């Protein structure tokens, strides 16, 4: 797989930019088809969704594929026979409708934000600040005992008494650990073991994180380094360019 778009892939990028996600594409289909959002003809919309992501090359984007799978699942559920007397029947589309409405509302907020941002963008603040000749005393320090004590509390929450520690056997959660590590590496290029495993982590959490690190290293998402035996392990994000 090439990461840098060769020529045939260029239109894909352009088309993808039209929609900010699968819900956006779905809403645009619902609008185009003029169907009721509370009573979506799911078979028709699912087929169109699939057709659109195929023609637009969106089938490379995992988020769109996930939505396609969801639509097909709902379509299948709608085909299951049901009795009119079945009060417990829950519309398989309910969750999708809820998400679409929520997404629509957020888009409404986006419109408002855009207006505000445009207003601010059209005014300039002062830019020129000549160097100052005035000798100013250093800023006074604001320090209260309350602040110090709450800092102490924060430290203590991390350094718990080992005697309070109960080991409960738990299954490993490698996926959870992978999510955590990815989260940390999104904000920082380099992290340490301590950044991805909370202080006082339980054994299963430590093992989960270790397995997650090895797995992510195998996938080329990060690099692990230990400069010397027993030294801190450094976790470094691999940029996509290097990974390719």
């Amino acid at each position, binding site marked *: 797989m090439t990461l840098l778009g060769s020529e045939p892939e260029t239109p894909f990028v352009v088309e993808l930019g039209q929609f900010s996600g699968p819900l956006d594409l779905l809403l645009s289909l619902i609008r185009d088809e003029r169907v009721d959002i509370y009573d979506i003809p799911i078979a028709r919309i699912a087929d169109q969704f699939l057709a659109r992501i195929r023609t637009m090359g969106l089938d490379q984007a995992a*988020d769109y594929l996930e939505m396609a799978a969801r639509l097909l699942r709902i379509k299948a559920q709608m085909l299951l026979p049901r009795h009119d007397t079945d009060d417990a029947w829950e519309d398989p589309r309910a969750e999708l409708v*809820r998400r679409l409405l929520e997404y629509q509302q957020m888009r409404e907020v986006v419109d408002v934000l855009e207006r505000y941002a445009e207003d601010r963008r059209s005014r300039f603040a*002062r830019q020129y600040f000549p160097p100052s000749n005035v000798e100013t005393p250093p800023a006074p320090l604001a320090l209260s005992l309350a602040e110090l004590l709450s800092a102490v509390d924060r430290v203590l929450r991390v350094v718990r008494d080992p005697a309070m520690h109960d080991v409960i056997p738990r299954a490993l959660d490698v996926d959870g650990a992978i999510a955590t590590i990815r*989260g940390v590496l999104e904000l920082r290029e380099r992290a340490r073991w301590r950044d991805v495993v909370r202080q006082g982590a339980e054994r299963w959490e430590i093992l989960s994180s270790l397995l997650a690190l090895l797995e992510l290293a195998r996938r080329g998402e990060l690099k692990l380094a230990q400069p010397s035996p027993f030294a801190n392990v450094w976790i470094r994000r691999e940029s996509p360019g290097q990974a390719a």
Partner: protein
Amino acid sequence: MSPLAKLLEAALFSSARPVPVEELAALDPEASPAAVRAALDELREAYDVNGHGIELTELGEGFQILTRPEYTEAIERAQLAVRPHRLSAASLETLAIIAYRQPIGRAEIEEIRGVNVGGVLKSLHERGLIDVVGRAEGLGRPLLYGTTPLFLEQFALRHLEELPRADELAVALRAEPRAV
């Protein structure tokens, strides 16, 4: 203009960011907050009545002097200043969710937007529009995000309450954020 209005004008001129009223009041130990407010009104009026290219605006938890919008294009054409880039749709959507639901974790934002938001969060964080405001309880203790004062400033808002309330929007949203 009154001496206090002149002092406030000079102070607002020397700040790149909006200045809160308390900071303006600190300029003159004898001036009450009410006197500062009156002097700010005087300054606003001086700009409005005498016809100036700049105006006094209240935003981002303080006061700031900004140029009037009608001159923006000419200034940009003469290359004396440039407007900042517009935010992408992905950034705006993510900001909208964070503004309304803060503190909020990444998983919940992705739930609403239906896409991975890792890269967007990173760039909003780098731009100083959002910050990590805490960590959720529970597995992995996910980071929680909130908007910053700079967000208010760049959207010309005085405070978050200036955004339409959830029940004022055309489409109703579920009331309570889901437990993380």
